[in-house]
Each structure stands twice: as C-alpha cells, then as structure tokens.
C-alpha cells in the first residue's frame, strides 16, 4: 500500500511540524513497517506548467512546432500529440529532467534538447502516462487555467507541476502484511488517526467518522442517509454479507470525464491507481480515504439483467455458474464465492470485481452505488481461487467494519451533490461491544513500564477510544472501526505501541540457578559433525526434505510410502523423503560432473514415511538420520563407519549379512551394522543400475543410520589395559585359505591363540591371484605379561595357531 505524507499532513496538522525523516521513523517504530519512501519532489523536478503560445503543424508530419511560455523567454518544442493547441496549459519536461515514468526504473530516460525533422526541440510536452500519473497516451495533459493549488494560488505558466498538483510529496511504501489485523489503516483517515496518536495529538475526525460515531451513539440526528424508495435487498445468509447498503442516483447529465487533467488523477496516482471515469474515481477516492470499497452498477442494465425489476440478492454461487468480469475475464464460480445478483442473475463477484453486464459507461444516467461488507473468509478463498488481488478485495479481506457502509455512502452523495432517489440498507441489529476493563498494573506489568493512568487515557483517547477511569481501573470503549481490539492485551498493545516500544526500559529476568539440561540427540549431532567434518574430512550438506517420485523410483523406494505434498512447487519436490541417501546420491552426481572425484558427503536430518505410522500426538513419526555417501567401496564405508564409532567412543560395530536393506544397496556388498542391542543401519555399496540411472560413473558406498539407535550403542570400554614390561615379539603370518573363507574367522582364531598374552593382530594384506584360494597376511606382536618369552615358547605359540588354522579351515601356512 502507498501512503502520501501530504495527505496525512492535511488530516494531521501536527505532522507538518515534524521533520519528514523523523515522521517516517516514528511511523516505522509505532505503526507499521515502512518498506521504502519515494521522494516525488525529486521525481517531478524540472517539470513545469507552460502555456502553448503557438502550435503550427509541421507539413507532412503529425507533429506541431510549438512556442511555449515557461515563465520567461519562449521556448521551442516539437510536439507529436494531436491535442496540442494554442492557448492551452500543458506540462513541460525541461531538458535535463528525467521522464517520470522511467524515474524508478533500471533505465531512467533523460530528456534533452535535440533536432526533430530539422527543428530544434527543447524538452517535451508530456502525456499522463509519461508523467506516471495515468495510463493516457492519447494526448498531452491539459491543465485547467482556472485551477487553484492547495494553498490557494491560481496556476500560471512557469509554476512547477509539483506546486500545481501537490507533487512535492513523500510516498511511503507500506508492508501490508503487518497491517493484516488493521482494516482501519487501509484508509488514509485511519492511517492519519494513528499518526496523530503517535505524535501525542488528538485526532480530529472527518465528517464520515463523526457521522459513524453519532450512529454508534444512537443519535437520531446522525446525518446519514435515511432509507427511502423501494429498492429491495435480500441477503440469503447474513454471515456472508453482514451489511449491504445501496443508494440509487440519477444524473441530469451523464457525468463525463473532464478534458482537463485533475487533482483526483494525482490523488489516485499517489496510491498507485489510475483515473477512469468520474463515478469510478469517486468510489476509488472514498475507498482510499476510508478503507470502505464501493461499487457502482448501471441501474438500467441492472434492471434488464434482473428481468425488469431492481432487486439485489446476495447469495453464494451455484455450481457451474459463470460470470464475465469488468476486465473481460470469464470466471467459473464455485460455491464459496459470494455473488451480487440482480434478481438472482449474477452481476458482480462480491468484494472482488463487478460484472461486465452492469458496467457503467458513457451513457449511464442512473447508478446503484453499493457499500457493503462481506465475509473475509469467503473472500479470501475467492481471492485465491480466481487470483484477484484488487485494491478492494485487499481491504475486504481485512474485515472492514459494517458500521462504515452508510456513512461512506452518505459522503458519496455529498460529493456527487445529489440526493439519492432510493436508499436501502440491509443490516443486522447492531450489538454494542462491552467496554474492556483493565488496570494500570496490568498494562505496566505486561510492558515493563510505569505509565500513569493519565498517559494511558490520553493515548487511547487520541485515536478514538473512550476511556472511563476509576482509581487504577480503566474501562475502555472501542471505536466501531477497531475490529481488532477485543481483550485487555489488545489495549495494552495500543498503549505500548503509541507511546513507543522503544521507550520501554530494558531488563533481564531473574533466573533460578539451574543448568539447562543436555539434549542427548543434539549433543550427538554436534559430536558427529565435529568428527565427520573435522576428523574424517567429509563435507556436510543440507538437501531438500522433498524429493521427486522419479528419484524414488530410480532408487527403488515406493513413492506411495511417502507423504505427498499436494501443492508442491514442482514435481521435483513432491514427496517427503523416506531416507536421506538418495538425496545425497543426487548431489554426488552434481559434484562429480563439476570435476570433484574423491569426496564424501553427509547430512543429518529428519525423515518420515507412512509405514512409520503416527505417534501419540497423531502426527507422522519422524526419525533423525545420518547419511553418508562417498566415492569408494564397501570397505571404505566400513572403515569410515568404524572410525566414526571409535571417535564417538562407542563399541566397535559388528557387521552382519544384510538380509533386508533398502533397494538401492547392492545386497552382497552390504552389511547391517550393529553395536550391542542397537541395530544402527546398513553400510554398503550402491547398486550398479541405480548409479547408472543417476549417471554416476564411479563406485559409491553409503551408510544411513538412525541416530536414536546410535544413542543406544554401548560405550567402548578399554578393559584392563596392560602395557608390556617385557620384550615384544613380532611375527608375520600368511595363510592360504579358500576364496570364500570369511576373513574375520581367521583373525579371531589367531587372536584366540594369543589370548593369554598382551597382543595385537594386524591384518597386512589380502592377496587373491587364483579364483579358488586367497592369501591372508597378518602381523602379530605379542609379549608375556610376566616374563620374557624364549624362542621355544614363541615357536610353541606360533605352531599352535598354525595347527588350529590348518585343522579348522584347511588353511595352508605359507
């Protein structure tokens, strides 16, 4: 939303006394985030009101050679607009100035002095679109010589366009999101009321709101339009449309757009809107001022659509109904959409846009002016379903107060200088909201302040609240336009905000001297990251939690077991991942392609799938996994795994033949890792065809473990470590065994043979030249805990081991 500071200053005189930068700062600190501010004074610099002294057609062109009076010496300009004529007042962009329409763009266009068809042309006479004050490019703007500026001066050649039209302004860009709950601030008046409050000034309510207050107070002489005539309004469900007010106006003459460029066009342009026609402009101006959108129907068309009767029926759309909107778009309606109908025939998509069948045009002599409120819940869905984000629906979806409809309609009549021929108002019986009661202690306790009851009262009353006090108690009546204030905390917010949160003295809470508990999983994750990145040289990655079903199919996961995102951004991000390894494989490919050849990626993150079921809260059970993917084979992964367990201080894992692994593991090159009672996960190589499908041309090994399981793994204990006091003996041992012989059985046998000693058995090599046998070599070092072994004893030990190996495994010692 865009807010003109000049308009605010008109409503809040005190704001003129505050430095602009300070004012913007205060608005940002106490009302709403100001995303940016645009200095229109700069934007419209060096643009002048000029009088066209002469305009001669240049033969064989559409151009005119003009002499203009810009306040001093006549200037020559070539102008291509068909409406340029002698004696008119126009807007002239002086050489060196930037064309406003290009001002905030990537390529600002600077006007120069140049030759056109051999004639010197200095600057340009501008059309509304070039000035960024309208869409009109049919001709240059013409300024009414009778026009007076806001400070009462008559326009004259040489005056700047900014002076003439009040363009010397700062336009604020307001973040709508932070006003979601403030329908009142979507009107200039509401915004200005807040500015007054921020400056500590009482806001002088304009007539519309004075009227509203009188109505709310039950004054019979409120000044709002009284119902008259026979216009019939029917609302099928009051929750859809809390209030529908309408007035019929008949014009003596069809209201026509002035040939002159108007201040209204400028007013609308400052809000980012465009002048269209006098009636539409009036509805838009009132909406911008009050936040209450209006819509005008052509009365005669309305009657024809309704079959000769002017009856307004508000209802939801029926399945299959369609409506052609003002912008020509045909919308297929759904049962949530609210429709305005003429005797049951759709004429407008309520709150969003009018229908083409009742559009006002150059011949319209009679209009129905609608001022209504609709269910913001329905409109929100309408907005999403049809992608309509008009200024009107933006306001309606904030929940405009029902009390505002008739006062705004009354103001419209005043501005049209017409008495409506018919007025109808369909509204619920108003129920007054009970005052909110709270104490000064409540306010100061929540804020951490020491504001007095007078400060609180004044602050609230400045912005339209009525406050009764009794000792330390406040009884706060909420003005009708504040649909967001319901509970004492809402009132506290008003006081804190308007007096400035930044004035609250900072404190620190007193804390009991208890330590925060360590979360085991969090500690494990931190330790893992230290180990995997810092000691095992892996790269930590984060990949999306959503994957494509294509990837799942490639790796052999059942996409149906995944939670599917119904509104995913792309098919690539459709399913919640079941495991992390496939995401890593995807990234392996990317990195291999860019030239990395030897690396290991890991990620710690959450996974879920249908088959894990729901937990006690009835939400999907989730697990935290660690997944590792590396260039290498099973043994590389296994070594990393062992090292990781070692660094974590956990028991050395045992590897079991993998029976049930995720489909992407090459089963015979994979193992289930267990430690104690904990089944940690699968370590293994990725299937060749999975790698091929992912265009990975190197072997890749992976493991993925459930961290909750890892927490169950027993701690590695160094049991009764003894260091040797006597000489250590070293022996190498190589045995030839059958090719299919399990390595671990041989190593265990050797270790058992040394069990009484202080010994280490280190595998040295596995050598397989023929297909039937392989040679396993070990390096043994051992010493006796109590004596020096003599050669006979050493020989006995070795012989015993060798015999064992030969007998048990048919091994041959080499």
């Amino acid at each position, binding site marked *: 939303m865009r807010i003109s500071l000049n308009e605010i200053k008109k409503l809040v005189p005190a704001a003129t006394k505050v430095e602009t930068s300070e004012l913007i700062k205060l608005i940002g600190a106490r009302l709403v985030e100001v995303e940016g501010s645009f200095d229109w004074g700069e934007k419209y610099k060096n643009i002048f009101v000029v009088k066209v002294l002469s305009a001669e057609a240049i033969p064989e062109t559409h151009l005119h050679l003009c002499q203009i009076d810009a306040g001093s010496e006549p200037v020559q300009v070539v102008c291509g607009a068909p409406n340029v004529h002698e004696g008119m007042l126009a807007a002239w962009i002086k050489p060196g100035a930037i064309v406003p329409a290009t001002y905030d763009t990537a390529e600002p266009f600077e006007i120069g002095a140049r030759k056109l068809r051999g004639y010197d042309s200095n600057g340009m006479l501008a059309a509304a679109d070039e000035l960024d004050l309208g869409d009109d490019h049919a001709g240059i703007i013409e300024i009414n010589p009778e026009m007076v500026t806001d400070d009462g001066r008559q326009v004259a050649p040489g005056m700047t366009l900014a002076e003439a039209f009040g363009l010397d302004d700062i336009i604020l860009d307001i973040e709508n999101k932070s006003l979601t709950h403030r329908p009142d601030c979507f009107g200039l008046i509401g915004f200005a009321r807040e500015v007054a409050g921020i400056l500590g000034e009482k806001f002088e309510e304009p007539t519309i709101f004075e009227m509203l207050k009188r109505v709310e107070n039950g004054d019979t002489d409120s000044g709002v339009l009284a119902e008259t005539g026979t216009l019939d309004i029917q609302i099928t469900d009051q929750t859809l449309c809390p209030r529908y007010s309408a007035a019929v106006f008949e014009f003596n003459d069809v209201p026509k757009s002035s040939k002159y460029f108007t201040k209204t066009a400028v007013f609308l342009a400052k809000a980012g809107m465009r002048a269209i026609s006098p009636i539409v402009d009036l509805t838009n101006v009132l909406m911008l001022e009050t936040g209450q959108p209006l819509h005008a129907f052509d009365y005669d068309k309305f009657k024809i659509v309704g079959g000769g009767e002017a009856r307004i029926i508000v209802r939801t759309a029926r399945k299959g109904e369609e409506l052609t909107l003002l912008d020509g778009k045909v919308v297929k309606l759904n049962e949530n959409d609210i429709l305005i109908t003429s005797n049951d025939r759709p004429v407008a998509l309520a709150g969003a846009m009018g229908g083409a069948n009742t559009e006002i045009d150059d011949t319209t002599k009679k209009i129905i002016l609608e001022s209504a409120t609709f269910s913001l819940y329905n409109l929100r869905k309408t907005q999403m379903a049809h992608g309509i984000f008009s200024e009107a629906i933006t306001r309606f979806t904030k929940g405009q107060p029902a009390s505002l409809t008739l006062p705004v309609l009354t103001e419209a009549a005043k501005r049209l200088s017409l008495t409506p021929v018919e007025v109808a108002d369909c509204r619920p019986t108003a129920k007054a909201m009970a005052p909110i009661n709270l104490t000064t202690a409540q306010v100061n306790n929540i804020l951490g302040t020491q504001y007095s009851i007078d400060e609180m009262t004044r602050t609230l009353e400045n912005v339209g609240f009525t406050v009764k006090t009794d000792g330390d108690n406040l009884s706060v009546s909420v003005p009708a336009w504040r649909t967001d204030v319901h509970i004492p905390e809402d009132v506290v917010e008003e006081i804190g905000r308007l007096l400035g949160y930044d004035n609250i003295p900072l404190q620190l809470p007193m804390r009991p001297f208890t330590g925060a508990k360590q*979360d085991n999983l969090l500690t494990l994750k*931190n330790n893992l990251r230290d180990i995997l990145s810092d000691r095992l040289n892996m790269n930590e990655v*984060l990949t999306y*939690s959503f994957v494509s079903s294509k990837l799942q199919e490639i790796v052999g996961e059942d996409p149906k077991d995944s939670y599917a995102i119904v509104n995913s951004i792309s098919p690539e991000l459709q399913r*919640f991942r079941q495991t992390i390894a496939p995401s890593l494989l995807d990234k392996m490919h990317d990195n291999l392609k860019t030239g990395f050849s030897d690396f290991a990626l890991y990620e710690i993150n959450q996974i879920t799938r249908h088959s894990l079921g729901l937990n006690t809260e009835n939400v999907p059970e989730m697990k935290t996994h660690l997944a590792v993917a590396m260039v290498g084979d099973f043994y590389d992964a296994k070594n990393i795994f062992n090292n990781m367990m070692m660094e974590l201080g956990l028991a050395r894992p045992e590897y079991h033949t993998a029976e049930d692994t995720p489909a992407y593991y090459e089963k015979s090159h994979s193992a289930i890792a267990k430690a104690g009672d904990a089944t940690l996960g699968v370590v293994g190589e990725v299937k060749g065809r999975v790698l091929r499908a992912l265009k990975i041309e190197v072997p890749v090994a992976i493991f993925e473990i459930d961290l909750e399981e890892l927490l169950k793994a027993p701690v590695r204990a160094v049991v009764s470590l003894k260091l040797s006091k006597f000489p250590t003996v070293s022996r190498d041992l190589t045995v030839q065994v059958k090719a299919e012989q399990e390595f671990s059985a041989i190593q265990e046998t050797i270790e058992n043979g040394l069990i009484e000693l202080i010994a280490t058995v280190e595998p040295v090599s596995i050598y397989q030249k023929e297909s039937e046998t392989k040679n396993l070599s070990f390096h043994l070092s051992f010493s006796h805990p109590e004596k020096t072994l003599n050669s006979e004893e050493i020989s006995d030990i070795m012989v015993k081991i060798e015999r064992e190996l030969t007998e048990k495994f048919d091994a041959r010692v080499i």
Partner: protein
Amino acid sequence: MPEKIEEIRQQIKALNAEYAKIKTLPVEERKAFGQKINHQRQALEQQLLAAEAEAEDAAVEPIDITAPGAANKALPKIKRGSKHPLMTELSRLLDIYSRMGFDIIEARQLDDEFHMFESLNFPEGHPARDGYDTFRTEEGFIPPAHTSTMQYRALTRFKSNLDKGGQIAVVIPGRVFRNEDVDATHEHTFYQCEGVFVSKDANMGQMLGVLKQVFEVYYGQELNIKTQPGYFPFTEPSVEMLIEKPKALGGKGDGWLEMLGMGMIHPNVLKTAGIDPTEYRGFAWGGGIDRLAMLKHQLTDVRYFESGKLEFLEKF
C-alpha cells in the same frame, strides 16, 4: 666470508703463540699479560662464532614462500572436510542460549493444523494463515512454515517447571518450509530458531533485554536495538526487533538489521497449553538462521545453502 673466518683463525693462532712468551716475562708481569691474552682470545673466539653463524645463514638456499610446496617434491595435498555454514551458525546461537540457561528442543518437519495454527490462536480460515504459504500433504499434514509450530509442545512439556516455582525457557531450532517461488533471496526451505520464555513476571522490557543480550554475545559487541510493530496472532503485543548493524558486518552505526519477530504470548496460547494467563506471562520470538549466515559470509544467493555443491561447501 670464509676469508674472514680464516683471518680470525690465523689471529687466534698468532695469539696462541704469544702464550709462549709468558715464561720469558718477569713473574710479577705474567699474570697481567696472561689476562690480556685471554681477553683478546675470547674476543676473537666470539668474532669467529659470529662469522661462522653468518656464513652458515648466508649459505641457506632461499625458498619461494608463495609456492604451495618445495621444488622437486610432490606437492602436499590437504584434504579437509567442511561443516555446513547454516549448521555452524545455528550451533553458535544454540550455544549462547544454552549458556543463558535455555533448554533446547528441535522442531519436527511434518506437523498438523493444530500445532501450526490452532494452538497459536489463528482462527480457522483466517487470512492470517495465508501469510505463511504452507505446503500440505494429502492427509492435511503441514511441513511447518515456522518453528512456532513447537510452542504448544514447549509450553506443555516444560509446564512442570512453573509448578515447581521455576520458569519455562526453551529455544527451538528447526527446518521450515514455505510455498514460495525460489530466487536469490527466497527459499522454500530454510532454518529458524524459536524461543519461549514464561514466568510470573515476564514483560516486554525483559523480552527486549534478553534478545539484545543474545545478539550482543553473538556479535561480541554492545548493540543498539529498536522495534517496529508487527502482527502475529499468537503474540499480543507483537513487534519486530532490529539490531544496529554490527561492526563485524561492516556496520558504522548507521544501518539496521531486522532480526526477530516477537511478542508477549497471547493469553489464548497459554490457555490452550493449560497455563493460567492470569498467573503467568510469557514472551516468544523467532528468527531466521539463513539470514545470519548470509550476512556473516556476505552471500548473495540463499539457494547456495541447499545446493549441495562442493564448490560452495568447501569454502566453510
């Protein structure tokens, strides 16, 4: 150089020859003479050591300190791992909270309407729910769009602290998701850290005081803060907190950084969690982690974080 050494050596030799003269001198002069010779010899020996050291230094071949390794040797290959910058920033932050006495629980990545909206005082169908651009699964579960989805759990889980006369002080890091178009400054997947504090006397002054502290520790300097009003259905009053741009990020006391959304916990939120809002008050806050990492490393593209590219990861 060697000539100089040789010269000194000759001088020492000559001096040594002088010793023979001692015997020829009268007894009473011998002592003084001996001392003089000794003195001269010591001086020469000093000179010799210095000259030798100088010669040795001069003989050392200079190396190219700008080269990655010595000539004719295999260049050293250093393989190092890396931690993800987002996780690194998050750990730092959690470490600060932890030292301040906050418990930590992690946010889940798939949740339901109740935790994401209802328990947070979002009326059903309210447009405020739109602001979160949530994803949904076929079953109606929601990959949470904010870590506030854990507030109800944090409040109920640590409620017993209040019964024991203590406080609830929890922070909740987590991965969150928003259905928005991805560009250099928008990601559909990012990280947040939430905080919840409840006690008998919590107030806005404390809220701003505590969070100012957090950022002061995080950036290692005193910082000015300011606020702007915000709107969240689950806090009342609500504000956004900005910090002065810290020196570490090139701040010169002029710029401001929007860091957190926060506010006093709405009484309905406390009530839903079974905490009596007339007896206890609380404040809650949340902010993005991606932003902290982007500011720190002057990154211009948020998409790098989940790109999985080693070109990026290896820099950290």
